[in-house]
């Protein structure tokens, strides 16, 4: 099978995923106790006013009708109006998505820069003091809560030394780079630990593989062995992991976004849940589903490129 038809068959698989996500999220948000009217007017509205709000939001209609409207809207590219933000859901999400995307890519870049070289160093110096100290350092990074690392960085590097701004996002590309450096680093300390461990064990596995020993026996220079044979094969499982992490990070940098006041979608999702903002929660979940599907698709494509055996599957 060619890469192109592989691509299309993978693309088709996304559609049922998407439908299932829509049904589940629609039912799940409504299964939560409390509703948008309660969340909006919790300690203010009379019983009568709550009913008025529900009517205005169409929450008094039967579930199947609400679902019908939701599906119809999605297929016409309209995700409705956010109850909390009092603005169209698509607009609200598009405003917040860039910050999360920027932070995620920035963090992934950092993770690779940190984890890649160190994983090789650790693997090639297996069980020496070098390997042990690298692994211990990452273990500490992995087991320290993200908000704590974030606050430490903010307190020392930003508030005291004034090298960086205390949170925020900025307005230009360079400002984003500057403002998001500490949050990206915070996220990367965690992510790189996972990638490093995985990459290190893959490298160890590959280095011992027969084809590498064969390459070495052929007398190929170590540079080519490491670059062409070891790296490419060791990366296969790491790419999967990386894809999963990006998917997680896009929606899951909530703590980092809060501590560093980054206006991203993680924070938005939390606000939406606390406001029981059904349209916004649905819109965000769909957005995450699309993003994660795209990332997994790309992951699969990269893997297929790295490992031709996968294209047949």
């Amino acid at each position: 099978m060619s890469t192109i038809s592989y691509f299309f068959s993978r693309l088709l698989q996304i559609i049922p995923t998407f439908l299932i996500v829509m049904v589940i999220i629609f039912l799940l948000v409504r299964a939560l106790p409390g509703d948008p009217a309660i969340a909006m007017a919790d300690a203010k509205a009379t019983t009568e006013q709550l009913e008025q709000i529900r009517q205005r939001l169409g929450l008094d209609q039967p579930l199947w009708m609400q679902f019908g409207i939701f599906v119809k809207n999605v297929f016409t590219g309209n995700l409705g109006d956010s109850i909390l933000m009092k603005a169209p859901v698509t607009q609200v999400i598009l405003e917040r998505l860039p910050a999360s995307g920027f932070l995620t890519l920035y963090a992934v870049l950092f993770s690779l820069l940190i984890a890649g070289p160190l994983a090789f160093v650790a693997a090639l110096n297996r069980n020496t003091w070098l390997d042990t100290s690298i692994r211990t350092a990452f273990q500490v990074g992995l087991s320290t809560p993200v908000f704590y690392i974030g606050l430490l960085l903010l307190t020392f590097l930003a508030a005291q030394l004034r090298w960086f701004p205390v949170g925020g996002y900025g307005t230009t590309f360079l400002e984003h780079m500057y403002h998001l450096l500490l949050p990206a680093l915070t996220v990367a300390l965690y992510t790189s630990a996972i990638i490093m461990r995985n990459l290190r064990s893959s490298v160890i596995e590959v280095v011992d593989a027969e084809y590498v020993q064969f390459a070495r026996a052929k007398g190929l220079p170590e540079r080519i062995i490491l670059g062409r044979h070891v790296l490419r094969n060791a990366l296969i499982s790491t790419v999967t992991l990386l894809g999963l992490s990006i998917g997680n990070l896009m929606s899951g940098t909530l703590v980092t976004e809060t501590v560093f006041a980054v206006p991203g979608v993680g924070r938005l999702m939390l606000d939406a849940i606390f406001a029981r903002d059904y349209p916004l929660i649905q819109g965000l979940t769909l957005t995450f589903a699309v993003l994660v599907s795209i990332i997994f698709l790309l992951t699969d494509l990269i893997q297929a490129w790295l490992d031709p055996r996968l294209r047949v599957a």
Partner: protein
Amino acid sequence: MKKLLMATVAAAAMFSAVPSMAIERGGSLTFARYDDSTLIDPIYADRNPDIWMVTNLYDTLLRTEADGKTVTSGLAESYDVAEDGQSVTLTLRDGIKFSDGTPIEGKDVVFSLTRASDADLSPWAGLLSSIDEVTADGNQVTIKLNRPDPTIVLMLATFNTAIVSADAFEAANGETDQEKAQSIAIDGFVGSGPFMMKSHQRGTLMQFGANPHYWREGEDGEPLPYMDGINFLVIPDDATRILKLQAGEVDGAEFIPFARVGELEADQNINMELFPSTRIIYSPINTRETRADGSANPLADMKLRQALNYATDKNALVQLVLQGAGKPVSSGLMASTTQLATDNGPIYQYDLDKAKALIAEAGVPDGTELTLTILAGSADDAIILSALQQMWSQIGIDLNVEQVDGPTRGAKNRSGEFDIHTYGWVNDVNDPAQVAGWLGYYPTAKAVGTGWNNEEFNSLYEASNVEMDPAKRAEQYARMQDIYNEAAPLLFMYETPFAVALSSDVQGYVQTPLGNNEFASTWIDR
């Protein structure tokens, strides 16, 4: 004219609190907020981050002083309530203008008040249910009422009756009134307050600029505001907001956790302000005979509720939760800063013997289990829980816990599926009718979900809502508070101030007891 003079005297009195420094004009302030505004419009403001900003952008016909109680002139230079209480006449000031330079006229007032009292549009319309019709003739505005309403004057000094431009709404893009309001906020702001919206990047930055056509004068005889503008940054995390202030990146930070107040008070570069508020923390008690699951509810017995109140050391709670920056409530029904609040010192002062006697009278067996529903993730609630567990174990109450999020707690309050749960309140209006209606009047929301239904209280409340004689109304309120305190449908707890930390060069900033952020008279001393 008398009113105008009153306003001037009062304004002078307010500023005399500020050391006699020459006011400096210009510059802009950067202020860190805990949450962003969504839509700052008099009628669509339904969350505190919106409500508390409205009067910076839209002026009201009348205003309240910094104490939040005294009514003074606003866009209207005078007002007159008819003898029979059936109408209010107001005279608009000469030469007042919207931020786009167009005059503020009778038709704008008619439009604004009609819009504000339309129940299909405004969630606050219930507060204006006495309004029958609003008409204007030149600069005279007449509000015809369908019944005498002792709260109407205060309502005209409240954010939801602030004046918007009828022409701007007519010209704005959008089908519905809300879409038009949104479009005015984003595409072309027109307002009547001291500031105007310059830009708003949701979740990050909101910028206000000075309204060049604002009427009210500052201490130097020039129109307010003193500053050229304000930048609001959204910093949801408490610790980050404080760091941002300490690093000098912002000039002010709101909602300082009380645990950090002492540390910031010691900082010479920071002016730690604790503004008196109408915020009360209390816990509704389910007073129904049976619980939602059908089991018998021991809390239906008033004596047990009183015993719990006596067994709760409120001073200890104030120390534990607020580090002393607050006080136990002196009226069960409202904060002491509210009009007509009874204040004879704290109610239900800690008295273990009384609590034990009451619990014996009620015949509540030792080891009776009650459940306290608290907000998951709230540090304050966690402290309250462990304190109450210890305090109440003294009278043989075994306190369990249930942790939920805000909307779940709200839903439980409405359905009565709770024993006791933590809650809070801030007045939006300084007339006590709003808070008394919410906490005690059964038809509003079952007396804050407690199910407490007292006929005498209800009829007093109804009578007080049409009582035009201030003395009689005060008597009714005194009686209502007595009934309420005795019946104890709540665990009465404490009042808290608003904690705002400002850079020491910021002068004249006020957060009113209602929570409104007042920046018009704020200036920066360089």
